[in-house]
Structure formats: structure tokens, C-alpha cells
């Protein structure tokens, strides 16, 4: 998602003379254009994330509107107190951008995975989170963030199961996408909801594992706080199926799946398919990690069959 992000943020910064871009010494091969276009409004803060967020807060107090970019774990965990105190408590327009959400960085190892970023940040006051489902979802998130006068976080990621599929619908405010619609309204059905690029497990299963023969709705949510009052189609689906499978490339504790569960009325069945960490785990590609913790399209299909056996036509 880095390429569409750089394209979208370049347009925003070209229009906004108060905009500023700060990187934590990352972006080789991606940010050179921004650097030359922005002059002093582009800043490499070096390998010093705490200071980077403090500097962004100070620049925002001086009237600027900074975007702050690093690898997702470095942009969040190292400097969470700076994000909380300096940015969120002051309600400043600082946009933190974390590249490599979930297992995107694969073989780089656990230090480079971001599986708690949304949990950590979603509890902070005034913070808004954006986690696009696909590359063609990024620009809308960037546009929304650019318009905010308070803090936000953008989670950029690449799914190991990336599967192109046009959305049936995208809500202009929440950015929630409806990817697949149930055929039979009266028959048992399941509402599958993916957080950001986690939805691509469902898109993969629709394309390759026959999930398209099941009576499921597939939605991708992309923004927190959730707003089910606006997401009428999603709310209606949950109300009708009363069976939800939530999928996210993030740990379960504090994830978006837990928040979604309390945002909806009680349902008959609610399952979360999420990442997990085992002290004996091995290391590999993003897909290897997802298979290791059974966060896969196959596991998703099995879960749907388990909670609603009658939902499959075949």
C-alpha cells in the first residue's frame, strides 16, 4: 500500500501549504519525490521516534499539519507516550503512518510485525484509526485523514493472500466496503467482517475456496471508532444473520473484532479469527506466519462451516 499512499499524500501536500512530511529514516526508493518537492517541509527525523513525534507535535502547535511515517511497530510502540501526551491530549493534526501492518514484514521477524498497533492506539483519546482493505482503498483514507483537525493513524499493509475484487459498495464516511452479498435472505447466513487487509482472507476464499457458494455477506471495515449507525447495510446483515465471523491480522486482545462485538446487538454466534503468538514459533514469510497461527482462508471457511453448516449450498 506504500505506492498508493505516497501518491495520495503527495497530492494532499501539494494542495496544503501547512502540510509537512516527517520520516523516521525510512522510505528509500519511495519518498525521494516527496523530499525534493517539499523542501523544508520534508524532514528526516533520523532513527529517533520519540523525538520525531514530539517534533511533529511542536510543528502542529506552530500551525503545521504533519504526516509522520515509519515502519508500523516503530511508529507506534516506541513512541506511544509521545502519541498519547504530545499529540492526542492536545488534539493536534498529526497523522501517524505505519507501514507494514500485521505480518507484512514476514521474514524480517517479530520486531517488525505490527499485531497490536490498533489495540494500542484505539484506546488513546481523540485518535482515529484507518486501516484500508486494499491498495485502491488507501487514497480515500488519506483524504479523510487530511481533513481531520485531530490525530489519526494509518495502517498500511500487504496481505499474503492478496486477491483483487471490486467492492459492491463503499460508504463515503466510514469507508466500509461491501464485497459480497448473501443470495438468500431467509436462509441461515453468516456475516463475515474483515478489519482492513484482513478481509482479503475472505476475498481469497471467495475466489479460490468456494466461499462464494455460501450464503455469506462479506464486509471490510476500515475505520475506528466504528459507526454502525452509518453502516446500515452491515448492521442489517448482522441483524438478519445473527452470526458473525470477524477476521483480522492483529492479535485478538484489544483488536477491532472485540470492539465490533460490543458495537452490535447480541448475536447467536460470534467468532474472531486473528493472529496469535507462540513462544515456540518459527519464522518465515507473512503467509508462513499466518499458516502457523491458523489465520488462513482455509481456517475461515472451516469456521463458517462450523458456525452455520447449512449456509453452504453444496
Amino acid at each position: 500500500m506504500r505506492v498508493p499512499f505516497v501518491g495520495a499524500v503527495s497530492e494532499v501536500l501539494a494542495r496544503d501549504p501547512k502540510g509537512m512530511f516527517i520520516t523516521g529514516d525510512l522510505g528509500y526508493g519511495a519518498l525521494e519525490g516527496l523530499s525534493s518537492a517539499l523542501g523544508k517541509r520534508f524532514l528526516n527525523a533520523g532513527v529517533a521516534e520519540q523525538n520525531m513525534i514530539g517534533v511533529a507535535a511542536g510543528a502542529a502547535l506552530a500551525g503545521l499539519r504533519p504526516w509522520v511515517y515509519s515502519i508500523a511497530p516503530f511508529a507506534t510502540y516506541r513512541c506511544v507516550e509521545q502519541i498519547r501526551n504530545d499529540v492526542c491530549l492536545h488534539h493536534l493534526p498529526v497523522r501517524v503512518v505505519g507501514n507494514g501492518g500485521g505480518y507484512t514484514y514476514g521474514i524480517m521477524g517479530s520486531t517488525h510485525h505490527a499485531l497490536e498497533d490498533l489495540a494500542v492506539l484505539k484506546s488513546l483519546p481523540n485518535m482515529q484509526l484507518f486501516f484500508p482493505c486494499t491498495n485502491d482503498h488507501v487514497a480515500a483514507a488519506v483524504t479523510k485523514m487530511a481533513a481531520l483537525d485531530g490525530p489519526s493513524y494509518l495502517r498500511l499493509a500487504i496481505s499474503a493472500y492478496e486477491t483483487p475484487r471490486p467492492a459492491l459498495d463503499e460508504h463515503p464516511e466510514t469507508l466500509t466496503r461491501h464485497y459480497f452479498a448473501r443470495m438468500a435472505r431467509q436462509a441461515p447466513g453468516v456475516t463475515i467482517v474483515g478489519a482492513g487487509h484482513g478481509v482479503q482472507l475472505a476475498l481469497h476464499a471467495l475466489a479460490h475456496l468456494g466461499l462464494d457458494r455460501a450464503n455469506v455477506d462479506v464486509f471490510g471495515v476500515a475505520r475506528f471508532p466504528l459507526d454502525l449507525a452509518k453502516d446500515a447495510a452491515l448492521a442489517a446483515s448482522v441483524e438478519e444473520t445473527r452470526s458473525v465471523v470477524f477476521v483480522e491480522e492483529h492479535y485478538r486482545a484489544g483488536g477491532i473484532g472485540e470492539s465490533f462485538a460490543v458495537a452490535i446487538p447480541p448475536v447467536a454466534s460470534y467468532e474472531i479469527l486473528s493472529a496469535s503468538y507462540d513462544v515456540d514459533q518459527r519464522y518465515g514469510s507473512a503467509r508462513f506466519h499466518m499458516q502457523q497461527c491458523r489465520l488462513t482462508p482455509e481456517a475461515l471457511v472451516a469456521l463458517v462451516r462450523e458456525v452455520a453448516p447449512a449456509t453452504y449450498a453444496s
Partner: protein
Amino acid sequence: MTRRSPAELTADARSIRRAFLKMHYEAKAGHLGTGLSDIDLLTYVYGAWLRPQDVFILSKGHGASSLYATLHHYGRLTDEQFATYYKDGTLLPAHPAARALDAIPAATGSLGHGFPIASGLAYAHKHVHGSHARVACLVSDGECDEGSVWEAALFCAHHRLDNLTVLVDANGLQGFGRTEEVMKLEPLPLKWEAFGFRTSEIDGHDISKIAAAMERPADGRPHCIVARTTKGKGVRYMEDRLEWHYLPMSEAQYREAVDGLVDPRGDDKTGGGR
């Protein structure tokens, strides 16, 4: 404000100490030693240095009460606001709050935050806005244990932020002991110099010395003033005593403290160095 003489500023500092002791006594609040340590620096900042376009950040947020007393003395806090210190519903808690007062741009209290914020302000003013605004921030010596202080120091020197002055309230005492026993900082001026700062080392209770350091012309480098101070300055029984980081005063102690704040022009109890 018309430019105030060193003698007037010294008298201001004494009035601020008196108000500071009263507010702490009435609130039964601790953090006395740290405020008495920095009041002369704050007096110079607000009584002489700060122009409307300039910014001051109190990075050592536990000095908030001395900042409130200084702001009140110079008319930047109303009597009504000042009277709410430490009370339920106040905008003046023990560490500065966010978005609470126009006079205080940043909430601080977790150490190592205010200086990076000041650095961002200085960068924006110098390199983006091209303004002549100056930025000052006050850090404590114990605060220099924080890695983020040195991250910011690297940043300021690299970007030649000569519109920024860092004041270090070097009273030699921190949370649980003497700074040199807890985590050696000396030679502190040399450390700042090695990080690329123009460095001054002064008696942080001598208004004339503070003035001379703060008004040094810019030379392309950020400026660090290591202000040698005494924790609890001006109250004899508190001076250089760790416990006065924490304790509130009894009535007898309050009377003794106020009685001891004699006219600095006639006595060196509040005006002298160590």
C-alpha cells in the same frame, strides 16, 4: 511590558516565591523544592525575555506551580484562575494540562517530552514559517536521564536551530537522590557542547547572569544554558534537601519560610549563588 531592570526582576522573583509558598501551603501541595529552584529563570523568561511571538515550554512539568505563580505575577493568569490551583475542577493541576490555558501551549509532566515539542516549534518557525520567533524550554537535570532529551539535542544541532534556548535547571537533586549518585550527568555543559550546542554555565539564581546568557546573540547553533541552582532556593530549611521534592509545609514551616524571604536587595538569601 516596559523592560524591567535586574533589580526589579529580582524583586519580582521574591514576590513570586511568596505567592508560590502561599499557594502550596493552602493546597497542602508538594513539589516545593523544584519550583523554588526555577523561579528566577521563569521570572527572567516572563518578565523580560518573552515577546508575543515567542514560545516557552516547561519541559520539567513538575515545576507547574512555579509557572502558574509566574504567569499570575505578570498578569497572564487571572486571580480567579490562580485561586483554583489544586482544587477539584481547576485547570491548574500539579503538572500543566493540555489545551487548558492560552499561556501554556503544551501539557508536560512525563519528562523528556517538552524539549522535543520545543524543537518542533523551533524547526517550524525557523525553517518553514521563516519567522523570527524564538523558543525556550526548561528541562530539569534529572530529566536529562531521558533518551528523548538527547534525541532532541541531536535534532536541534543538526538543523541549526539557533532560535532555541534550552535552560537546564541543574540543582543536582532528582527523584530519589543526588543526580551524581543516581545517574552521573557531569560534565553536563561539555555533553551539550559535544552535541553541537553553544553552551553557557551560569548561576541560575542571579538575574543579571541569566539575562546575559539569554540575550547572547545567535551564532547558528542552538543554545544550552546550564543554570546551576539550589533546590528549595530561598527557604533555608528546604535548600538542597531531597525531601522537599515531596513534602507539603506545616503552618509553622510556612511562617518560617515566608519570614525568611527577605528583601533580596538587602540580603543574599534569595539572590545569591551557591
